[in-house]
């Protein structure tokens, strides 16, 4: 298990390195000179040259990359061009808002999705199963930004049950502010996870070892909940791990629609102003988040499935 974890960690670092390098090169390929955008059209050439040197943009690109990694290893992501604050401060200030949104979304959608899917699989081809299927498919088909806008209109503006914008202060208030955005970006995941669990569950229930468990008179509930669900859940864990990355992009919508602070909003704002250090900082953290969550999913899978541990 330790060997598996070490190897998986090494792979994560490699993925992170490749992703960050690609992003570093990509943002420099985007048209628009950051210095001109920052200083405006009437800046003197001397001023422009000064800022270019300050940002290190006069160096060849490979050298810029080396400097970036050199600083990164010392925990330095550079400074914000406008405010002069450390990028790490800005990013880590926004990170908790995005994290709580993603975790809240995953938590409610996975819980409901697994329950719905397992229930549908226990009663295949019945009316309940068909209703669950209809609900799941319509949930999957609902884009997060449409759901976000509708939820905002209905529950915040019209019914006024939940706050419309911001992230709130204090535990309960923050929870209150989480409801609508988490609902909006988690909804399609409920349907997706439910379909996945149903299919996976039906497959496992047909396997020989389930028949063996029944042939030994083990109670049906234990057969379903322990003997089958523990295997059926494996693909769901993987999907949730990867899903964290997708949720990160859905979080951008939610953060814009609900005017929430967060990583997504930070990235969008800094890309439009060519604020390279902030973009790189946020991308690095988002990528790290994605890499960590997929690695975590693999580790959980290895814990749940002894076969995964030895096959690597």
């Amino acid at each position, binding site marked *: 298990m330790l060997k598996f974890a070490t190897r998986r960690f090494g792979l994560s670092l490699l993925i992170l390195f490749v992703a960050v390098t690609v992003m570093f090169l990509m943002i420099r390929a985007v048209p628009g000179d950051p210095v001109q955008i920052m200083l405006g059209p009437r800046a003197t050439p001397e001023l422009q040259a000064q800022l270019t040197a300050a940002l290190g943009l006069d160096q060849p690109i490979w050298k810029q990359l080396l400097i970036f990694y050199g600083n990164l290893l010392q925990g330095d992501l550079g400074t914000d061009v406008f405010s002069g604050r450390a990028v790490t401060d800005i990013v880590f200030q926004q990170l908790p808002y995005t994290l709580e949104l993603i975790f809240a979304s995953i938590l409610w959608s996975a819980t409901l999705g697994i329950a719905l899917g397992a229930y549908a699989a226990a009663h295949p081809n019945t009316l309940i199963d068909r209703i669950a299927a209809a609900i799941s498919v319509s949930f999957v088909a609902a884009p997060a930004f449409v759901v976000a806008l509708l939820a905002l209109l209905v529950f915040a503006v019209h019914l006024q049950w939940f706050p419309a914008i911001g992230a709130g202060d204090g535990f309960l208030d923050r929870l209150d502010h989480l409801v609508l955005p988490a609902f909006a970006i988690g909804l399609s995941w409920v349907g997706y996870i439910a379909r996945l669990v149903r299919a996976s569950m039906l497959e496992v229930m047909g396997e*020989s*070892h389930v028949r*063996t468990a029944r042939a*030994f*008179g083990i109670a049906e509930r*234990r057969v379903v909940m322990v*003997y089958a669900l523990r*295997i059926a859940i494996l693909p769901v864990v993987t999907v949730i791990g990867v899903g964290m990355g997708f949720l990160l992009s859905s979080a951008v919508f939610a953060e814009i629609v609900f005017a929430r602070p967060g990583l997504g909003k930070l990235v969008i704002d800094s890309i439009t102003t060519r604020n390279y250090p902030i973009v790189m900082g946020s991308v690095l953290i988002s990528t790290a988040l994605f890499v960590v969550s997929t690695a975590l999913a693999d580790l959980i899978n290895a814990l749940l499935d002894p*076969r995964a541990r030895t096959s690597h």
Partner: protein
Amino acid sequence: MTDTLLEIDNLSVDYETGRGDLQALRDITFNVNKGEIVGIVGESGCGKSTLISSILRLTAPNTRFREGEIRFKGQDLLQVSERHMRDLRGADISIVFQDPMQTHNPVLTIGQQMLDIQHRSKQSKADKRAHATKMLGAVGIPDPEARLKQYPHEFSGGMRQRIAIAMALMSEPDLLIADEPTTALDATLEVQIIERLQELQREFHCAILFISHHLGVIAELCDRVVVMYAGAVVESGDVREIFHDPKHPYTRRLIECDPGHLKERARVLPTIPGEVPDLANLPGGCIFRDRCDQALARCATEVPPLDQLKEGHHAACWLNHEEATS
């Protein structure tokens, strides 16, 4: 009879399918006495699996019990409650399935699974564990204590089948159903498993219903044999009678086709020409008629009854009548 354990009486089972009812079992009648080993032989698709899942009542949802009874210790299993049926499974009636690679739960340790199946026992966990260790030792798993902590994929196929046998015998059942337990194993392992099964049977005195298409194993292990063809019993009787004086052409062909019975080297292994009839659309008369080289005129129109020819030897063939009259 007081020593009868399992009586299958006139059992007919259908599968409801899109193209009509499939008559998987028709008029199956035979019994298993206490402590006896009965073999069931037949080609794939002859209804062996339907028969055993019917005995355990673990059938597919589209199964319909059209007629007959399955009496276990005098009680009709098709009538008892699901709750009662569950109490019998793994306690009075145990089963060893065909494929040892798929038969255990892959994410639970062997020890956990062996503890789980003792769910009816009031013993402490330590006692159950000790019992599991003892059983693994009895089927010849070395270092059983340590191996309880391992997962199924850490065992070889032969070991997994021995574990399956250990699990099935744990509750000292009255009836052990072995569904082709050696088909998925190679020949040397097959011999080992059969010998182990014989030893354990002598120790536990359980009856065994042994399903196989390997005649050599049946001859070696069983007291009596039931030969099935296309969902019906065509012949049944004492193992010696069946092998030395088969009274149904299908049984004769089956024995001729067994590679172990070939007396000289053959370039082409003998086969029975033709195919098993369509169970959804059965022909009239004898089911084996199309493949039989001795078929008579009446075989096409009349179904031969399963007659008693000698004490305990039954066969369903008009040829036996012909011999009797001529």
